[in-house]
């Protein structure tokens, strides 16, 4: 049978309430879901489907069409490597390769401990700082691949400190 229904948080229900009667609301609602959960859990998508009366298939059509929407939980620290043209020409690909090498995971994957995930993005609009990567909100510009180990190390230490 159907998996258990999830109870949606009030903030989401309130947001859906605001958007419910607006046409073409589904993408805005999905943005909110992703903001709250970091991705779009299936059970939540099902609830949303009922609440705003959009078939689940359409929701999946949308989630899988737009690159920003995620079906899997990303890492605690989401690393977005810019592969816009300026960053590409300045070696964005090498940064990506080094990052994959250090973390041992590929693009759109999360480390086993759930701490890091890697995404590729197209132009963050900081071409003057190329090559650039962003960890959660923090931007690291004019990168060299030698810098990466230290940057990731800082986050690792932070995590270790939290645990300790």
């Amino acid at each position, binding site marked *: 049978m159907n998996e258990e229904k999830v109870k949606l948080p009030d903030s989401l229900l309130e947001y859906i309430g605001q958007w419910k009667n607006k046409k073409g609301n589904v993408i805005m609602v999905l943005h909110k879901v992703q903001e709250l959960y970091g991705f779009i859990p299936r059970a939540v998508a099902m609830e949303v489907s009922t609440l705003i009366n959009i*078939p689940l*298939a359409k929701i999946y059509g949308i989630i*899988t069409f737009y690159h920003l929407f995620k079906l899997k939980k990303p890492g605690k620290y989401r690393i977005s490597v810019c592969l816009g043209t300026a960053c590409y020409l300045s070696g964005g690909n090498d940064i990506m390769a080094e990052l994959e090498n250090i973390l041992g995971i590929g693009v759109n994957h999360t480390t086993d401990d759930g701490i890091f995930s890697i995404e590729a993005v197209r132009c963050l609009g900081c071409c003057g700082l190329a090559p650039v990567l962003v960890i959660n909100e923090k931007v690291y510009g004019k990168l060299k691949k030698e810098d990466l180990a230290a940057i990731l190390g800082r986050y690792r230490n932070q995590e270790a400190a939290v645990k300790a």
Partner: protein
Amino acid sequence: MSIVNIKINERTYQVNEDLSILEAARLMQVKIPTLCSHPDLSQSAACGLCVVKLKGTSKMIRACATPVEEGMEITTHDAELFEIRKTVLELILSNHPNSCLTCQRNQECELQRLAAEFGIREESFEKKLRDKPADTSTTSLILDPVKCIGCGRCVEVCQKVQNVFALEFIGRGFKMRIAPAGNITLNESPCIKCGQCSAHCPVGAIVEKDETAAVWTGLRNEKLYPVVQIAPATRVALGEAFGLETGTLVTGKMYALLRRLGFKAVFDTSFGADLTIMEEASELVDLLKNHPDHLPLITSCCPSWVDYLEKFYPDLIEHFSTAKSPHEMLGVMAKTYFAEKQGLKAQDIFMTSIMPCTSKKYEITRTDEMFASGVQDIDVVLTTRELARMTKASGIDFLSLPDEDADNILGEYTGAGVIFGATGGVMEAALRTAYYFITGEKLANIDVQPVRGLTGIKRAEIDIKGQKVKTAVAHGIGNVHVLMEEIREARRSGKPMPYHFIEVMACYGGCISGGGQPYWVNNEVRKKRTAGVYQDDKNHKLRMSHENPFIQKLYGTYLGKPLGEKSKKLLHTDYKPRPLYYK
């Protein structure tokens, strides 16, 4: 509607302004190739093959999606267009396996046909195929992503026509595929197995689950007594597979064919339909007389519709007629009544149903009631398309077969039984009998015209001796929600029910254009097949189910009365709410 002047390949024509260039050209016998355009559906303009040149613009435009305009000068064929189209076609072929020889659509594939017409002799581009396994989860359909050319017809029909939303485009770009929502199978999705996707697919990406091998096995098994039944709508369509004019009635040839294939008794689902009417009309009469507050009664012979209601309108289940569908009724009669007469046990009989429908394959194991005879009442369902293939494999020359009769008593049917094949038919047949049950008289105008035809929702009021019976007919399941919402609203508000009797068939046009019928359906084909069905009705002297002497005999000697104890046990079923998604 006004007429515009256009030039196609330097010749001037006058055409209706609501046509697309593609349609206009077709009327002028100019064939522009396409793989995605379908007259049933809105134009997706996906395949890119129908490009034409329009004077005054440098770009090529899509003929399927561009309406004609006064003064247009169109070139549909020249060397450059040929080259561009050929490249596009080769690109599509580079994304499609070369497994024609073993494909179910072999010789009936639109892509294969185009490749032949374009004279493609080599593969210019490297093969790049989708790497996804086929979905074989349902008992009705197989979805093979590798063969999909992404035309989107199935999605369009599933969403816009059927309103089921089992299929959707998933992912994008080169990785785009057509699948249910998320990483689930069709069987876990809201799919109602209507098979309209398979009927509209230009290639072999969605096909009916082929059961011909099971039938051959059954026929070969000497311990079994193979019997068969043919659905009303199959007799007006099978002929197409052998080059006969669309809508030609081939009932007698089909009986002959099935005997030659090895079936020992040949029955007709139309008899089952007569039986269904006896039960369903009795239900209607009972409700009208004794429980008007339980109205409306909703027909339940279409298993896709049953599946749809259980999933989408579980709150309305109580309105469903509990009468089984005709082939299930006939199945159980074959394995009980007929078996007894032949001195056989239920398990000795091997029952095959020839159906216009993919969903019937699902229906035969739907609930416990489908095993009313003690064993599975129907062993195998073949679609019309499968029977056509089986016939060709058997070496039987269908066209030169004589007309034969069906076996009695489960083979003789009335005009009411056969019109089940078209939209409005169940309603009409039920009204003919219900009128008699209530009044003891024959309906004056036996052709109930208002419930016939291809309008999506048909409403009619039938006067039964002063009692106005309000009826509605919906087909193409996307149309159903209008009626269901009206009922829900009436229930909510306590207002009188807008309808007393509702007929629903999942496929647009009814079973004559069911998901398992021969390919290339459009409204012309629907009209011709429908005409065939009504012709068969006219051809019958007896046109009301209760007049069928064999029905009378069956009740008299075996079943007792409609809605009686035995009838209820063998001929009725029940329904339960089902989740839209199992995962």
